């Protein structure tokens, strides 16, 4: 059974970590990265996925409702935090208290880079956090919304926007930006990466790999990328 390859559908933002884990040997895996929505729809259409790791609980909920995943296998594998970033050479300083005036930090022309606030998880969380701080209404006009969080980060890295809201994991590895502040986890719904075994792909091998992902070695790798864990850790 060591030969059996396990197909994992995972949110694209997990690529670095999962590639590293797979490289450590053990169960051979085929890693398929994409947007959570695209992957979920493909699973709906019978994609050969065995394990699904989403960046977004909504899509996992949809699959669960459709009975496409093994409900008992679903766990929240990872968590993440939202941070406010600025270009590395920026001297802006902000404390994320309610009513904080971010527009001042943006200047007359500047925008705040985010993922799409209506549809992309990082954007949705970001909007929720800003709303909780009571400043969404004043900032809504000043957002520059990208189709994914990496593109938003890129806008800050290139200095096109003086500020941006991205995941902590993204900020970690990008030397051209610096974290100005971290949003308090209570400002938005928990950022979790649910994972579950796909009903049609259930097998001992996939269960074994799922175990590996929750193991000590994997934890270290995830942690190095900046991820947190629902059960404990930070």
């Amino acid at each position, binding site marked *: 059974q060591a030969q059996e390859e396990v197909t994992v559908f995972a949110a694209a933002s997990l690529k670095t970590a999962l590639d590293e884990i797979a490289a450590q040997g053990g169960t051979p895996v085929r890693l398929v990265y994409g947007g959570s*929505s695209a992957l*979920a729809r493909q699973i709906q259409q019978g994609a050969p996925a065995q394990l699904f790791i989403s960046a977004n609980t*909504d*899509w996992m909920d949809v699959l669960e409702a459709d009975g496409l995943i093994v409900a008992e296998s679903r766990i929240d594998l990872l968590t993440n935090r939202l941070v406010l970033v600025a270009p590395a050479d920026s001297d802006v300083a902000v404390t994320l208290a309610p009513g904080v005036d971010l527009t001042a930090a943006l200047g007359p022309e500047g925008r705040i*880079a985010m993922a*799409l606030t*209506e*549809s992309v998880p990082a954007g949705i969380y970001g909007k929720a956090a800003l709303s909780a701080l009571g400043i969404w209404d004043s900032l809504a006009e000043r957002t520059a919304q990208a*189709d994914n969080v990496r593109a938003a980060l890129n806008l800050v890295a290139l200095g*096109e926007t003086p500020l941006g809201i991205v995941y902590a994991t993204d900020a970690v590895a990008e030397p051209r930006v610096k974290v100005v502040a971290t949003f308090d986890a209570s400002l938005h719904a928990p950022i979790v990466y649910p994972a579950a075994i796909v009903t049609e792909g259930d097998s001992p091998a996939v269960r074994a790999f799922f175990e590996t992902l929750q193991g000590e070695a994997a934890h270290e790798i995830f942690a190095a990328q900046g991820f947190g864990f629902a059960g404990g850790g930070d």
Partner: protein
Amino acid sequence: MTGWLGPEEWQAVGLSVKVAFWATLLSLPPGILAAYALARWEFRGKQLLNGLIHLPLILPPVVTGYLLLMTFGRRGPVGAWLEEVFGLVLAFRWTGAVLAAAVMAFPLMVRAIRLAIEAVDPRLEQAAATLGAPRWAVFFTVTLPLILPGVIAGSALAAAKAMGEFGATITFVSNIPGETRTLPSAIYSFMQVPGGEAPALRLVAVSVAVALLALAASELLARRAARRISGT
């Protein structure tokens, strides 16, 4: 009808049409020039120019958008220069969306026009020259009228592409309601969330309707131009 789409969505429709219109119109002169150069001139670096023009077709749109951002962004070399010299800002503006759409549509337009130029009988241009027409006059009075159907076809292709362009646009000028939130951005947004298919398809229907209208108009124009040329 207004009830069927929200005001924001109408805005996206209008913006898409505006962007497609300007992208097509502004690509025309350089498009015709590039097509003419590729069809008729021999020069060093011709293959390079040809490759460069095709690049947006070959690269994933995200990459094109990324390259545009690096070049034409406020901090990009060309972007900074444009802002300084002309006060022209592209980043996060609909003008930037026009640039992105134009760049993406350019290879399609050039190909169509180039094919049309290659089909022009050079003996007609020679005849014009013997009648005293300098080269520029030959171009405007003989070549251009004869390639009109190709120019229209190229413009239709370009406009359609500009209406549908998404990847490069959102990467370059992101998604700012009323400024750069074109129809495809809106559609993409809906497609990201569970249950967003229905509103997305509504917008798709609008986008298809607009594009079909434009296509039909271009067909009509092209047919008229072709009738002129068939000379009957």
